[in-house]
């Protein structure tokens, strides 16, 4: 074991010239990311797993797009970012006649998730060694899912005096792995920094466990993803 560590230490010492971030790099102060992932709200959990969501929208999963902007609170041994994000997802299906048959009228649920997040990205090794361009990260978020349901006329749905729109709060935990694309062509990366101020570009995959049900409120539905862990991926620009 000690021999392996010694070899790794020698390798690390042998490639200092391969450092990803030059001393001429522009100062880092924030990040922007765009991601896409699959999503299916766990609304039917109230009904034992099969309920109105499945009846109207079927069993498939939808797509959620998100964009996040973050301000770097700390840049040194890794990065600590405080961010805000917004996204969009929707599902559309056919309404039901009172007899239970599918009607010609469409009905949709549209969700705009917003979040306040704190992210720590361990990018020390990725920035130092070209042969290790990976930056694991973790994120904790306060989430607020703004949603509305539309009827066949495209208007907000309403039932029994209850408006079919609202917001559901919650939180989520995410973990991911980001691949530093600058490692593929450091020269191009430095040119991009000089031209645009973007220091690094990452390709990432992320796993999220969400709890979007108004902290267990008895008068709220469950907009958490119906999978234990949801998968998403995207691009991260650090500037």
């Amino acid at each position, binding site marked *: 074991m000690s021999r392996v560590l010694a070899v790794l230490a020698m390798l690390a010492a042998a490639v200092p010239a391969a450092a990803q971030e030059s001393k001429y790099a522009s100062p880092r102060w924030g990040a922007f990311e765009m991601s896409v992932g699959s999503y299916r709200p766990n609304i039917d959990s109230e009904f034992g797993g099969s309920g109105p969501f499945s009846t109207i929208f079927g069993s498939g999963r939808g797509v959620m797009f998100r964009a996040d902007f973050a301000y770097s609170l700390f840049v040194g041994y890794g990065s600590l970012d405080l961010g805000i994000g917004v996204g969009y997802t929707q599902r559309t299906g056919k309404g*039901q006649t009172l007899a239970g048959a599918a009607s*010609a009228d469409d009905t949709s649920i549209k969700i705009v998730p917003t979040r306040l997040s704190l992210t720590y990205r361990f990018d020390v090794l990725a920035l130092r060694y070209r042969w290790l361009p990976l930056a694991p990260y973790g994120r904790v978020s306060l989430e607020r899912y703004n949603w509305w*349901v539309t009827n066949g006329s495209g208007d907000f*749905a309403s*039932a029994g005096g209850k408006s079919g729109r609202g*917001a559901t709060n919650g939180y989520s935990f995410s973990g991911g792995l980001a691949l530093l694309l600058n490692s593929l062509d450091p020269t191009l990366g430095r040119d991009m920094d000089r031209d645009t101020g973007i220091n690094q570009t990452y390709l990432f995959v992320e796993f999220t466990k969400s709890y979007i049900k108004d902290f267990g409120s008895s008068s709220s539905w469950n907009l958490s993803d119906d999978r234990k862990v949801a998968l998403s991926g995207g691009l991260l620009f650090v500037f």
Partner: protein
Amino acid sequence: MAPRLAALAALLLAPSLVAAQATAGNGTVTVTENTDQDKVISVAECLNQKQDNLQVSWTFNSGGAGPFTLLASDQTACPQTSSNGTTVTATTVTMTSGVTTTNFADTQTVATRISSVFGANCPTTATTLFVCVIDTSTNTIITGSILLDLAAPPAPVANTPTPGDGALNVSWSQGSGSVDGGTGAAASFRVYCDVHPQTTPIGKKCADVGGQGTTSTRIEHLTNGTEYDVEVTAVTQGGNESGRSNLVSGTPEAINDFWRLYRQDGGRDQGGCALGAGGLVALLALVPLALRRRRRLP
């Protein structure tokens, strides 16, 4: 020597002459209708069932001091008798002369102008009425035009409406002979509907639907369980309306959208946009960031 110089001068000047001919012309003439302000003459206006008058305004690129003479013609540039020695067949009439302003409101109706140029009956093949303005001080002529939309489109073919919640989803196909973009082409559609039973033509208009290629619309604010009769017509850009489509019927019915179904099944969410505990915490968490930014300001 002189002929050589003249030839050289001609060679040098030739490109500039070509460039002059390639310019947009001597000016612009805008022809509209006074009442409905459009640039299309419809069947009703041609037959004087709907009275309107031409409104002409113009701008000369140079000169244009007037006085002006206005002509109406079935051919561009309003040729009188011949052009370049070739006899042309055209009908050109004088609308007015001695005008000293740069606009003219015709006192004759559109129907009168059409009949004076094209004859007593509305033309079935002509698509344009040309209006020319002559600056008599320089004998310069500029031309404008207005579209003749003198054919009605074919009647659409309506499909049986599908029921919506307090609504009917009406669809149709364009009748045979419809050609998008030409005179007589459908530019929009009109839906008539009323409580069953109705006899054609239904008098109550329920919707105007824009767009040449549109083939469906939704009629709302109807009563569930009540049968309605529906007809559709096509309308050209000038306002010529086709005959009625076949009469079709449909009955709106109550539909459970997702929210209704969720609530009906006993869903516990109450809706509403109240700021929950999480949202409040999120807002409070923004405060440290704002303070940090503020401290950095000089």
